[in-house]
């Protein structure tokens, strides 16, 4: 068992990570006794598991993910939603509001093409397009705020450990921030300054997601602002 790269080192696809009896984690693959990276990212050795935290990459929906999507088409009994995944999501009419059962003949009176919806992934397994719901607390059509699009691979960094990063951001900019797992972030604040500040920090987190000590740097930034 030998590690060929250091922990937290930046690697590229096909780079040898380690040899021997390791567990193959995310974004890595095994070839006989060697484990390689399949992505550009940061290596993470934790005990016997080796994985790569990727820097960029497509969003693949997982059940229970909160996603923000845009309506792209109205179907017979539901909507087609672009959630920035390789597959369009299906939002059935029955998953929007319990009242909109049979009596609504024109779905565009509820959601129109171009509307943003906060939704949750119900089902997805790559053999079929993802199924989403807009029924539940906090879900539904977006009426206010600005959206920021970042790579979905950087969402864990924006949220932080147990939500520490996004909580810090909310508190310091006095904004309401909703993070979609698909990389779309909704920011709304009472003041335009707060909104602008939040957006610029989100962009900074995206740019520096692969570096260490990011939370401290964001904290320092706000402390400097406060002075």
């Amino acid at each position, binding site marked *: 068992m030998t590690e060929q790269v250091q922990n937290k080192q*930046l*690697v*590229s*696809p*096909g*780079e*040898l990570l380690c040899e021997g009896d390791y567990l193959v984690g995310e*974004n890595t*693959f095994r*070839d006989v006794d060697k484990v*390689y990276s*399949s*992505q*550009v990212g940061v290596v993470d050795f934790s005990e016997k598991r080796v994985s790569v935290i*990727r*820097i*960029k*990459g*497509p969003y693949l929906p997982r059940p229970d993910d909160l996603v923000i999507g845009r309506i792209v088409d109205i179907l017979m009994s539901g909507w087609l939603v672009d959630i920035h995944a*390789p*597959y*369009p999501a299906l939002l059935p009419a029955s998953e929007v509001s319990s009242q909109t059962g049979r009596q609504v003949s024109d779905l565009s009176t509820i959601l129109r093409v171009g509307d943003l919806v906060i939704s949750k992934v119900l089902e997805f397994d*790559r*053999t079929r397009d993802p199924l989403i719901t807009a029924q539940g607390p906090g879900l539904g059509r977006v009426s206010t705020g600005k959206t920021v699009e970042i*790579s979905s*691979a950087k969402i864990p960094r924006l949220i932080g450990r147990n939500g520490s990063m996004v909580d810090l951001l909310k508190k310091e900019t006095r904004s309401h921030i909703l993070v979609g797992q698909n990389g779309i972030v909704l920011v709304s604040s009472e003041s335009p300054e707060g909104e602008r500040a939040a957006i610029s920090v989100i962009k900074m987190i995206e*740019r*520096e997601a*692969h*570096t*260490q*000590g990011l939370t*401290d*740097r964001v904290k*320092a930034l706000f402390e400097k602002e406060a002075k």
Partner: protein
Amino acid sequence: MIELNFLHSEKDLIDKDGKRIDGRGLYDLRPLKLDVGLLDKAEGSAYIEHGKNRILAAVYGPREAHPKHIALPHRAVVRCRYHMAPFSVDERKSPAPSRREHEISKVIREALDPAIMSEYYPRATIDVFIEVLQSDGGSRCAGITAASLALADAGIPMKGLVAACAVGKISGKIALDLSDAEDKQGEADLPVAYMPRNDRITLIQMDGILTQEEFEEGLSLAVNACKDIHNRQQEALKEKYLKIKKEVEVEPKMAGGN
């Protein structure tokens, strides 16, 4: 007489000091410059300057397959378009895809396909666009090198990077990385795309005649050149991120000193 001069110029591809027309030795690569992630709209992109070649590669997807009937149930479809800009060559090239471009698109797709873990995205497509802005011989190889970087930049899972380089025979000698003039006047051209990670050749073509010994010498030369190019690819992929890392990870110490 002019035509005869042209025929004779074959002999002049190597001068008496063993230098080629652009001053390189027989086994030297042309200057190489790689740049990654320069297009905002594309999921991944790369730019390569290989000699006088200037090529832009962009990757879109994985995205929904259109038309729907091309989608495959077990893997993503990889599509590739190699295209030369009308201004990329001396004489204006018609922008319509030519027979040659169709063929090169196909061989590039097949050269990249073994590297892409396409089974991760069934029913989707991955679109690779290679746009030659200026052409100088060996553009399919430079295109592959750039496209493989663009794929990695898009965050598409890959089994390794593909690097490509050509060898050829000029004035009776095997030479690495032919330029446009050498390609046209030389005796043979052998483009090779290679995945150093698992020691696999993903593209090999030959134009002209080589003996078995010449072929073997040329192939090992090309493979070694691909390994060098591969190292440059890895550096290019990481460079952008390392720069940011270096820039920001120093700062807190300075701030702490205040």
